[in-house]
């Protein structure tokens, strides 16, 4: 009897101790908030597709708003519009996704091998140029493609191709599956490159050398040692790249919509602009399903959790290099040419395009700084003033920087706190749950995530106001979408801080907040700072995440640029995208500089 009462008394007091622990309080708070911001939106989205909405009375007489129905799913899968709404876009998504992935992986794999394993010259400056297409917004590449291959058949002025060759480019070259696959591949090959280069760099040359010593030939070594070691990472890179391409919205929209070529992602947007919300949400769920399957498959190939996704790049690799001999310079020239074509030419095209008075006429007399410095002139571009005098653009620039800055800071701090909890309370199942919830946004294609927040914050729920149309909502979604990355960065930083450093402070009597402020934060700062910069750049070039949530008062550069592109104001949209591209490149340079500083400090310590 006494035993039982003692046990329960003990349990009660332990419980009391546990709930006044600030770490536990923070953990429960974060769990609740993230559940609301990550899991509930998905449920809400699902419910939305399974109930009649107000607008559905236009479509069906049986519609009773708020009641359960399979109507939207049936409409999407078996209705007369299903091939146009779902199956067509699905096939297009798979087609462009697979083609782009294969191209990106071949290019990325070959380049990774050249940079990591061969003695090709000029690696140091080729590597940053090769990653440029991934750093700039994807839709910069689409705009550059349009600049060259635009066809007046669809409307607007001819592109460079027609201006110089005198013939209109064939339509398949201007719009649709082909240009989308190519531009997607250009945008994503650096991603594949980084993943494969990482895997190649993990190969210890000694493994290969010992195979050589055992008498294996070079081919056998490659077949039995090198490939099996790299294969899982290679397959994972394949699937991850595919998963990324299917969520792309702006790029396929610009190069596909003019000829009614739709992918699932662009269809989500198109349906929302048509007011077919529920149908758009069905497609968003299909998109999430595709993304989940691809990530599940990639995880099965790479058992190692730590390689799930790559966040900070620019790491120096070293392993035994293979002499290319006489091929050294030809290969260098080929790689340099490729890097120039995909990394630099698109930016030059955008820059040139932005100073042409009339699109499509190539001559010195057609050059003008109007789109940068000119004031409103009703004869040019419907009276839109140049970038420097355009209040919309200046406001959008301010919004962009504000959004990127605030989101990056909040995401990093929350990411660090979550990382702290998951590392230090590894045995607590709630801490593990927190880690997993924070990872979930990674699984949502960004446009689908935007759609979720659209449904969640359209109306006030309880104490939470209708955030739609506010800047706060943009910050919220940006922070949540960056969490998987910032938690990962935080975990790396925290794991490097020995538990004893904190225990020593605990013994001195420091409270948890004091320890976090005086020990954890300063020690994690350099890692968190670079993570913050990654988030800053990421938020700045984000379009598909927020495109559905933007209202005129909360415009950012990317959405304004997208708007101009939709209206056919090529010069202005090019100028804007160029600004974003330059800003992101500056961000990356700062990041490299931070990284170098860190390396230098480390070296100092070791000597």
């Amino acid at each position, binding site marked *: 009897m006494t035993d039982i009462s*003692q046990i329960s*008394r*003990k349990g009660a*007091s*332990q419980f009391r*101790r546990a709930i006044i622990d600030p770490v536990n309080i923070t953990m429960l708070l974060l769990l609740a908030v993230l559940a609301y911001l990550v899991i509930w939106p998905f449920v809400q989205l699902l419910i939305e597709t399974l109930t009649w909405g107000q607008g559905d009375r236009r479509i069906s007489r049986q519609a009773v708003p708020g009641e359960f129905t399979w109507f939207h799913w049936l409409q999407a899968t078996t209705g007369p519009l299903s091939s146009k709404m779902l199956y067509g876009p699905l096939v297009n998504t798979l087609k462009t996704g697979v083609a782009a992935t294969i191209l990106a992986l071949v290019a990325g794999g070959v380049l990774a091998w050249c940079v990591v394993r061969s003695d090709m010259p000029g690696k140091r400056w080729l590597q940053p140029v090769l990653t440029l297409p991934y750093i700039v917004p994807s839709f910069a590449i689409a705009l550059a493609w349009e600049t060259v291959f635009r066809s007046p058949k669809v409307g607007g002025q001819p592109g460079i191709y027609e201006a110089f060759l005198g013939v209109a480019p064939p339509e398949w070259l201007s719009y649709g599956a082909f240009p989308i696959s190519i531009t997607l591949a250009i945008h994503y090959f650096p991603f594949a490159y980084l993943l494969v280069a990482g895997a190649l760099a993990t190969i210890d040359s000694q493994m290969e050398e010992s195979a050589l010593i055992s008498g294996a030939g070079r081919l056998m070594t490659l077949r039995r040692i090198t490939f099996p070691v790299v294969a899982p990472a290679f397959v994972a890179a394949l699937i991850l790249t595919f998963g990324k391409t299917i969520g792309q919205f702006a790029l396929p929209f610009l190069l596909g919509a003019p000829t009614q070529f739709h992918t699932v992602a662009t269809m989500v947007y198109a349906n929302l602009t048509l007011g077919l919300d529920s149908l758009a949400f069905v497609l968003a769920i299909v998109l999430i399903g595709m993304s989940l399957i691809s990530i599940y498959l990639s995880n099965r190939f790479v058992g190692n959790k730590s390689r799930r996704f790559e966040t900070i790049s620019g790491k120096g690799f070293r392993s035994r290099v293979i002499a290319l001999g006489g091929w050294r310079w030809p290969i260098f020239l080929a790689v340099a040419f490729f890097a120039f074509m995909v990394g630099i030419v698109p930016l030059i095209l955008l820059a040139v395009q932005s100073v042409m008075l009339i699109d499509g006429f190539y001559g010195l007399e057609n050059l003008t700084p109007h789109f940068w410095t000119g004031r409103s002139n009703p004869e040019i571009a419907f009276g839109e003033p140049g970038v420097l005098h355009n209040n919309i653009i200046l406001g959008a620039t301010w919004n962009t920087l504000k959004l990127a800055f605030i989101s990056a800071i909040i995401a990093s701090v929350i990411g660090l706190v979550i990382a702290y909890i998951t590392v230090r309370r590894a045995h607590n199942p709630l801490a593990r749950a927190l880690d997993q919830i924070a990872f979930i946004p990674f699984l949502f294609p960004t446009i689908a995530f935007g759609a979720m927040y659209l449904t969640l914050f359209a109306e006030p729920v309880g104490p939470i106001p209708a955030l739609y149309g506010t800047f706060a909502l943009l910050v919220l979604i940006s922070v949540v979408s960056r969490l998987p990355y910032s938690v990962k960065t935080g975990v790396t930083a925290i794991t490097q801080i*020995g538990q*004893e*450093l904190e*225990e*020593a*402070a*605990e*013994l*001195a*009597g*420091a*409270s948890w907040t*004091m320890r976090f402020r*005086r*020990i954890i934060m*300063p*020690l994690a700062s350099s890692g968190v700072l670079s993570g913050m910069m990654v988030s800053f750049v990421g938020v700045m070039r984000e379009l598909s995440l927020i495109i559905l949530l933007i209202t005129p008062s909360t415009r950012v550069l990317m959405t304004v640029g997208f708007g101009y592109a939709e209206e056919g104001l090529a010069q202005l949209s090019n100028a804007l995208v160029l600004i974003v591209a330059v800003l992101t490149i500056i961000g990356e340079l700062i990041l490299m500089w931070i990284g170098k500083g860190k390396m230098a400090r480390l070296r100092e*310590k070791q000597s």
Partner: protein
Amino acid sequence: MSKISVRNLTKKYGTAIALNNVSLEIESGEFLVLLGPSGCGKTTLLRCLAGLETPDAGEIIMGDTVVFSSEKNIMTPPGKRNLGMVFQSYALWPHMSVRDNVKFGLDVLKTPKPIADERLDEVLGDVGLGHLDQRYPSELSGGQQQRVALARLLATQPPVFLMDEPLSNLDARLRMDMRVELKRFQSEAKATTVYVTHDQTEAMTMSTRVVVMKDGEVQQISPPDQLYRQPENTFVADFVGMPRINLIKLSAEGGHGSVYSNGDIQVDIEWEPGCSEVVVGARPEDITVSQEPSPTAEDYEITAVLPNGPETIIQLTRGQTALITRVGHDTALIDGQTVWVHFKTQALNVYAAETGALISREAVTI
């Protein structure tokens, strides 16, 4: 002033038992060393005292305060236990200067600046780091880092010092110097000290008492000389002493008496432990060798001669039985030689073969 009582302390990690019903009384001002092989629970015990681990059952009392009790639901957080600790890795905060590292504890206590500064100068001067106080830990040598950790412990003048293998990261020479210094600071501060180590030389030279642990249980608590002379079981006998003790399993001829043998050798221990199977523990110095044949001694062959600085270790073999003894460094003994061996009967410890426990001579003779 600050006596520590540990009563029936138990700590489990899942199904693994790290501490099994451990009880200890630590006198005020004592230098108690926890000694044992890795995984024996000594660090867990220290961390339970610090409050960094929560035991599953038992009680810890420091001075007059109960700081942990599973029955009374007391668990005082580490910062409120008024103790200082030196970690194995020193746990110096790399982003703070030496001075800030030492000052942290005073900051927590909200010590006024002039008093804190005075105290810092004093402590840093004491440990010989007065001129390095603006350096960062990464700019210091291992020995200097060790001193910072020590200064950090001393700054707030806690009545209890906890040390977790503080010298294990230093090279052998420095370790010797630091032993002396640690001991000096401890006795000046009159702090009750609990010191974890797996190095028996450290345990022997610094402690007032040693606690030998194995598999989460206390094996013996004794002053160092007694630990060496009278290990209470074969584990302690074997663990303490370098070169190792000779543990020889023997049987009584005819089941009782004072003469024991194993077919190779015969030993007369000169008293009757009343046990037919025993293990005799003979320290290397308890075995003497003579080059002169003697009727009361058995002849052994020398199978190894290992010079070791001031002494030389000799391996002796008779049949399948091998013994270790130590002689002076100027010995003329050579490999393959035959010698005659005497046991210092008074110094031998006798253990029951079945349990490994010491058979007390007094208890038997009374």
